């Protein structure tokens, strides 16, 4: 699925950078009914992780109250050039990944 990632392309060693992520997902709560009374099954993202050069630096659990197309923003201290890898995991075997590179001077 489409994802929008905002990581600065360059930073100074030791800088605190803001990482912003937005991904496409309907986040169906599992509490709604159709017009004929059937329950709409839950379909949400349950977990998000961010790895920086292989090491996990941020993780979040997501719940039915979170809006569609979840937006998550967090901060990281950058010490070396490398890659941020993002992964969203959800119901019905949902999995989506994205990555972004940063150059540290």
């Amino acid at each position: 699925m489409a994802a929008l990632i905002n990581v600065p392309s360059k930073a100074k060693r030791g800088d605190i950078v803001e990482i912003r992520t937005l991904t496409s997902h309907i986040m169906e709560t599992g509490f709604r009914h159709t017009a004929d009374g059937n329950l709409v099954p839950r379909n949400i993202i349950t977990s998000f992780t961010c790895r920086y050069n292989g090491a996990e630096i941020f993780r979040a659990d997501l719940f039915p109250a979170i809006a569609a197309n979840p937006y998550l923003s967090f901060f990281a201290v950058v010490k070396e050039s490398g890659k941020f890898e993002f992964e969203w995991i959800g119901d019905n075997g949902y999995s989506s990944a994205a990555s972004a590179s940063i150059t540290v001077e």
Partner: protein
Amino acid sequence: MMSWRAIAAVALFAAAPALLAGEIPPDARRSGYAFMGPDTRAMQDDDTSNPGMLFVLDGEALWAKKTGSAAKSCTDCHGDARSSMKGVAARYPAFDKALGRPVTLDQRINLCRANHQQATPLPYESRDLLALSAFIAHQSRGTPITAGDDPQAKPFVEQGRALYMQREGQLNLACTNCHDDNFDKRLAGAPITQAQPTGYPLYRLEWQTLGSLERRLRSCMSGVRAQAYDYGSPELVALELYLMSRAHGLPMETPAVRP
């Protein structure tokens, strides 16, 4: 008895000019953006936090994808949308000579699919149709709206204007009663806007998804307890055309974010 009738007649004459004087002068026209809070504005302004951009990304992929029995993509005829589609959405709904009536951008996409790609039409409000129209309209971001300038479209603009002024539904309200006469006031805590359709298809936080102007018009109609026109009906297209001509000169914002 006679005097009551006279008073009623005087009251009617006194009220009539006030109702007709509702139209907003061009320099006082403001996009719905001007009515939003700073948080929602910031969300729209930053392309990495604007959820409408997710649909634009999907639309970009669909633009290049071959489809239908003709196995053609939009790119095969139109090339790079960044140049070929620039400013196009600001002219829609546009008059179609072959059909003899105006068509919306969504209808144009489906006409292209039927005539050139030999593909099945995309249903109204389907993710693919919204993504394609968002991608196309995004190429016009910043372009002033010029829809309705075509002389052939004039009778349809007039039809739309008549619908806009016509009271309907159990609450017996016309569009103009809120959006010309009472903008800047509040309705149950939400600001009443001028109904300038500058950013469609737009991401409405209440919908949790992208939606077309027709969806917005239909939800206003059910709000005044009226029977909403069907998607793609001549009445909705005429209303859409009138609203776009009413927003003449305002810049396109697609994909906008609205509460």
